[in-house]
Every structure is written in C-alpha cells, then in structure tokens.
C-alpha cells in the first residue's frame, strides 16, 4: 500500500518533496510526475495546475543574498500570458514577487536573510471573493529562524488555460532559478484556500494537540448533493444520517465569548490598591473575608441557550509603588442569576457560582510590565431569562497584613469568560455552586 505524504491533502494536485523522493516525483494523490528537464521541471500542458480563485501554492526553496529567478510558473511557454508566477527578483536584495494574470500583486522581502542561502517557505493562498476577484495571503518564512513576513492583496483573478504549461525552476528554460533546481526543496499546488496556520502546520512546525476537558465541535466534510447519496431512488438513510451528524456538530457554532475585554495598558490606566477606591464600587464577595467584587469589572450578559459552564481568565500587571516586592493578589470570577445585593426577597433566592480563587504574587516591576494571564478555571452559569451577572473579585494578601500590601498596585488588562460544554456534574473539579 502506498503511504500518503503527510502534506498530501484532498485538494493537492501536485506535491513535490526532495526530501521524500526525487523532486520531480509527484507525491500527491495524482501520482503524475513532472518531466525532469535537468535545470527545471515541466508539465506541458498542465490542466491540473490551471487554477484561479481558491488556490494554494507553496514552495520551499533556498534563498540567499544573490538569489534570483523563477520558482513556479503556469502559463504559456513563451513567458506570456500566464496565470501565476512566483519569482525571486533583485531589488537591492532578494524580494519574492507574486504575479497573477501578468500583474505583480505582492512582493515580500525574505525575512532575516543570511549571508549564505537558507531555506524559506513561500506560501501564497487565495480565496475567491466574488466574480473574478480573490483575496490573497502571502507568507514567507525563514525555516532557519522562524521569522515570517506577511502581505495581502485583493485582486482580479486570471483565466487559467489548461493548455498552458507548468514549470518549476524556470520558464521553459528561461529565467532559471539561480540556485539551480537543487535549491528548490518542495512544491505543492492545491485547489483550496489554505490558511497561514495550515501552512505553518505543514511546513514549519506541527503544534502539540491542546489538552481540553470539555467537548469540541467540528463540521463534517459537507456532502456534495450531486453525489448519488441523494439521487433519485436512493434511500434516505445516508443523507439524513450525515445531516443529523452535521446538525450535532453545528449546534454550538453561534457560541461566542461571553466576556472579552481588553483595556489600555499604559501607565495612566486605572489600577487598584488594597483600599479598593472608590470603596463604594467594591463589595465583599458573599462569604468571603477579603475578595471584593469590582463594579468596574461587572457584566450583565446573555449566555447561549444550554450553556451552563464557562472558563474565566484574567490578564493582570502587578507592581510596587516603591520597593521591589508586591504582596500576593487573589482573583476570582463570580456569577449569579439574580444579583444578591439587590434581591428583595421576591422570587427564588439568587443562585451563585464562583471560580477557584487564584493567587499571583509576581511583580512585573512597573505599570507597563508584561503581566501575565491568570487562569481562574471554570464556573457554573446560573441564568435567569437567559442572562447571567458576572463580576471579577480581587483580594490583597488574602486579607492579611503584608509588608508590601500598601505598595502593591494591580491593573486588570483583560478579562475573558468563554462558554464550554457540557454542564458539569455537581462536585466536578473547580466549579462551585
């Protein structure tokens, strides 16, 4: 059985990888090799590479200070007309140029160029945005340093001609890549828009899978209704089965961040000290001796139907007004269906929930110090009429005395409360009720 190359995707019409095989060997599912013309590769004509609109072009090649020439080209063998062309040109140093339908649409300097040629990923992906128009995203990454340069353009798309040829490393022998064909390490051509994140995962470094405790959702591959699955005389089963599965995967597509706030992070932005000024805006959290809920971080928000759990995080900067130390600072997010501070005894008693109390005791030096995220964990979401009250609580030194208490300032830079699923069982980890 033929092992698929990890970068061979369903949309790939050509995949060359000099590490896995000779460069001209097509490792995509098409399995149609290019012709080796010694100094360049060719397919004449190349209907499969005649693509405009939704399209991905990826090239891995060595670029140095004196590099020039054609990397990838689809068009007439004479050099004109053509649908797309990627070249490295000399413009007081090498610049990667991207042409569509004879027009230069984007050029990008190769980032962190070394004195010797080094490997770069050149990724150009475009998405059709209308009749004859597309948006292109270009990313050039130094695979030595990881440095990336980005550029974008909205442009007209060409009319690809299936009778035209595909060339790698030259245009029918002309305008050859100065590093030679050996300097080109990989090429991929696809019929789908690929995000720059996908380019990173494929060509730069694969991420580690996130560890998540709650459910995820992912759209199943949509089924083209022209397939026999829904054809005349076919049974309902497979089509309805797919639609039902897709509905399950789509049931939380509208779930959005409930609280997502970022504040100014300058030296004059409001901060907080142990006196909680103005005191009228800070109330002790129910049952707490030191966590005070802040009016400046209180929200009344709708929660998605069926959402009863959320994950809360805050980003804070802490610094001393004098000296070098800060006291520990505690953070906690609360949620209520009915606000207990205004409850008049009518109707059901308020239900509340809170995250764990998280403590940070690190000084960031100054008010413009880097700060850090503090993960407060999960909380249950009591709701009334589809809405929930939220508030961030802060405590200093757990209410105790501390030599740095009076000097400690804290500024909340960001607060995020995001929905998660499913609803936890009573007593589950850090969820209070």
């Amino acid at each position, binding site marked *: 059985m033929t092992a698929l190359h990890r970068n061979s*995707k*369903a949309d790939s019409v050509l995949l060359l990888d000099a590490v896995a095989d000779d460069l001209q060997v097509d490792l995509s599912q098409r399995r149609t090799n290019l012709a080796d013309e010694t100094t360049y590769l060719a397919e004449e004509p190349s209907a499969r590479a005649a693509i405009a609109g939704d399209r991905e072009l990826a090239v891995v090649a060595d670029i140095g200070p004196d590099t020039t020439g054609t990397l990838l080209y689809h068009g007439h063998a004479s050099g004109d007309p053509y649908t797309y062309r990627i070249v490295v040109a000399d413009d007081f140093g090498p610049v990667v140029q991207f042409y569509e339908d004879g027009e230069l649409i984007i050029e990008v300097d190769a980032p962190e160029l070394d004195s010797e040629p080094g490997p770069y990923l050149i990724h150009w992906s475009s998405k059709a945005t209308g009749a004859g128009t597309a948006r292109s*995203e270009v990313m050039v*990454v130094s695979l030595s340093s*990881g440095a990336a340069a980005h550029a974008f353009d909205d442009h007209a798309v060409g009319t690809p001609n299936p009778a035209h040829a595909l060339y790698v490393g030259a245009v029918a022998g002309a305008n050859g890549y100065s590093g030679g064909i050996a300097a080109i390490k990989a090429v991929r051509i696809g019929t*789908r*828009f690929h995000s*720059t*994140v996908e380019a990173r*995962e494929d060509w*730069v470094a694969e991420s580690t*899978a*996130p560890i*998540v405790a709650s459910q995820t*959702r*992912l*759209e199943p591959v949509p*089924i083209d209704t022209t397939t026999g699955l*829904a054809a*005349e005389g076919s*049974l*309902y*089963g497979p089509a309805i089965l*797919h*639609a*039902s*599965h897709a509905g399950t995967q*789509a*049931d*939380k*597509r509208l*779930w*959005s*961040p409930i*609280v997502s*706030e*970022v*504040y100014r992070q300058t030296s004059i*932005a*409001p901060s907080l000290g142990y006196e909680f000024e*103005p005191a009228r805006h*800070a*109330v002790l959290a129910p049952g707490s001796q030191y966590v005070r809920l802040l*009016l400046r971080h*209180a929200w009344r*928000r*709708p929660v998605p*139907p*069926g959402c009863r759990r959320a*994950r809360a995080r805050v*980003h804070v900067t802490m610094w001393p007004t004098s000296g070098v130390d800060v006291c520990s600072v505690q953070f906690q997010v609360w949620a209520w269906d009915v*606000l207990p*501070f*205004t409850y008049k005894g009518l109707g059901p008693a308020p239900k509340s929930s809170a995250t764990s109390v998280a403590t940070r005791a690190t000084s960031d030096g100054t008010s*413009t110090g880097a700060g850090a*995220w503090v993960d407060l964990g999960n909380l249950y979401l009591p709701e009334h009429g*589809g809405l929930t009250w939220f508030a961030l609580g802060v405590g200093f030194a757990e209410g105790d005395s501390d030599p740095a208490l009076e000097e400690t300032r804290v500024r909340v830079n*960001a607060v995020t409360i*995001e929905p*998660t699923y499913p609803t936890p069982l009573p007593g589950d980890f850090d969820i209070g009720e």
Partner: protein
Amino acid sequence: MLKLAKLHAALPTHPDRAPLGAGRVARAAPVHEALKGQDRVLAHGARIVAHVGLAGGDIWQADADLVPELNEQTHPSTAFRVVARAKVRLTPGYSLRFRAACVRSGVHQHLSGADWAYVGTGGAVKVSVTYDNGVDDPLAVSRTVTPKASKLENGLEPEGDGAAWADLHEVLGDLFPPELFESAAVARRWSEGVDAAITIYFRGGVRVVDLCVYEAPTRYARDTAEDDVESYSTHLHTSGAADPLPAYPSPWPMTRRSDAGGGDPTGGPLAALHVAARQGRVLGPMLLAWSSWLESQDVALTEAAPVSSTSTSWVQLLAPAVTSWAPTRAGWAAGSPGMARRADLAGPLELRGVAAVVPVRVRAWCRVTDDASPGALRLQAGDYSIAELPVTSESWAWREVLGWLECGVNGDDPQSWQLLVKAGGGGSAVEVRYLAVDYAAG
C-alpha cells in the same frame, strides 16, 4: 409556498442516529426526528455584538465627587453622545435587543445661551440600529430608555463600602423591526444576508456599568417556489402555519423528495444536505467588539475619543510599549470560536486536530490623519496568523477586511487575539474608535 419558522432560544436536540445507519429498516420516524433536530440548530445563539460600560474605569463622567458648577461644563450635557458603534452580519432569522446594568444617574448640564446650567440629575441610553439586506430600503429602529436617577444631593452615589452594588438596576429594550412581524413575506426578505449597523448613545449623567447589544432569534422564512434550497439556513420542517410537523408527511422515506417538480424541497435529503452545508458556512460566533469610550473622557466630547498611534513600526494599539503579538500578553478571547471550525479550513486532514482556524471579517471604525501616509491595523492570533486592514482615508468610516485567524479548539483552549497598528510616517496617526469582528460567512 411561504414557510415561516418562529424562532425561540432553543436547546439543541441530538436524535438517535442508529436507526438511520446501515442495515436498518427505513422508517419515517427517525427521519422526522433528524429533520426536527436540524431545525433546532439555528436558534441556538445569543451573540453579543456590541458592548460598552465602565470597562475597567473607576470614575464616571457624572462624577460623584465633583460638585457641579454654574457657567462651566463639569458634567455631561443633555445632548446624546456616541459611546460605541458596531457593524455585524446578523445570524439568519435574528434581530437585536439590548440590556444595560446601571447605577443611579448623576448630574447633567444644559447649555443655555453661553452658559452651562445645572439641570438636575438623570440621563438616558439610546441604541439605534439600521438593518440592511442590500435589496430593500434599510429598516431603522431606535430605543431610548431612562435609568433611575440619583436621589442624593448633587447626584451623588451612595457612600459606604460596596454601596453602589445595591444601587444596580437594569434597563432594556428590543430592537426588532416591527415590519418583521407583519407577514411571512416581509420576514422572508429579512431572513438572510442582513447587516446591522449599531450606534449606542449616552445622554446626561447616566452611569452605565455594562451595556450589551445581543442577538435574539425572531423569524425565518423562505419561499419554496422562489428561494433556492441552497439558501436555507434552517430546514423549515414545519407546517405552513410555522408549527413543527407532528409526524413525517409520508409513511415511507424511500424516494427522493425534492423540488424537481417545482414543489416543496423541505423534508427531503437534498434539503437536509444543503442545510447542513449552509449552517457550516453561515453560522458562526461574534468574535469581538470594542469601543474606545472611557467614562474618564472629557465631558465636552460628542463621541468617544479615539486611541491613536504614530508609530511607524508595529505596536499594540492598547499597549504601545509592546511591539509584537505574544501569547503571554493581554488579548481578546479566542478559544470558544473553535466550536465553529469548518471542514475545509480546520478538518482532521487540514490541521490534524492540533490547531484551529476561523474565517473572520475584521471591521474597524478608523481613519488616518493624513491620507498621504496610510497606515494599517493587524488583528493577530500568532506569528503566523494575521488579518491586516489598510487604513487609507482621513474620514471616519467602517473599513473591513477578510481574514483567517487561529483560534482555540474550544473555550478551554486559551488563545488570544491582539490588535497592532502601524502608521505611515510623516506624523500621520492611525486613529481607532471601534472594532467589530465576526465570523465571515460564505
């Protein structure tokens, strides 16, 4: 035939799929349940599309510690001031409503001739929305509500630890265009492809802790004769009276039911597949909304003061000392958008389950002070994930761009999006008042 669904905030159902599997006897009931389940997906949202409030501040414009003076503006005026704007592509079949948590309003002043006069306490909140479907004349809806006013001298807040919390109360309003409820024919025209432009105003001494404008499901309609089944965002497995069907309309789900004969395509596998595909393309989260409004801003302002930058290298708009994106820096929430991952961008072959991406429409109400030196904004999700918005005009307006940004796989996966800015030099500044980023349907 016009088919209408009256949408209610619904919990999804996940019918048993085993009876639809291979080797099972084809029956109508499981098909019926599956299509009913498909109809419950659309109403499963409450996206927050705009918000404004104290936003970390410790002071109101209606300053409780400042005694008003005559002949000088020390407190907010009785004219409306713009505190937030947003623009969003509405979820099909949704309209907007708002709710604000307030403490009692403080002092406001009125310009009488050349002098500012003290006119007591009070204020109002107004939210205006213009709905535009790109075909008909836009529908405009505006609601003004009045929070309670302080009963204390000079509009003071109650004193004492935490006293303001006992003062909290809510004001709210629906922003539904009344035309939606006139007929299914009108609802049909406003069911798909509707953009909402939202403006939030404060007047007088209002003290708003948090105001949010959010989506509420209302009505969704299609004409089975006129509308291509590919344009259905929900199945409409309903009767003509907008009621769920009690049972599948035929006893044998053995043959194709389609609009091939010009009939009703709902209830059949073609419609089921089209709706499934469209829900993946069209339904997605509201990703972030932001206003530069601060309650500490000058009381004479008629609109939120912008955040600006003249830096000719990339810096974070809200943390100008920071010159790049970093996961350790403050940013907007981007974990839960992963619940809207699409197969073509983030499928198991595309991203191997280790990363996630969503399509975004980045909108900024912004300008440059000199259009000879254009600038740009970048909403960034990492070193390799950027949406860039050129800012080329000196006029204030919404500018937007399409992008594809990395996100978490769900709300447990910490990801943050940060906004960077770069000016064009020559002293030209990029100024930003509002941001609105939503899922890019299509």
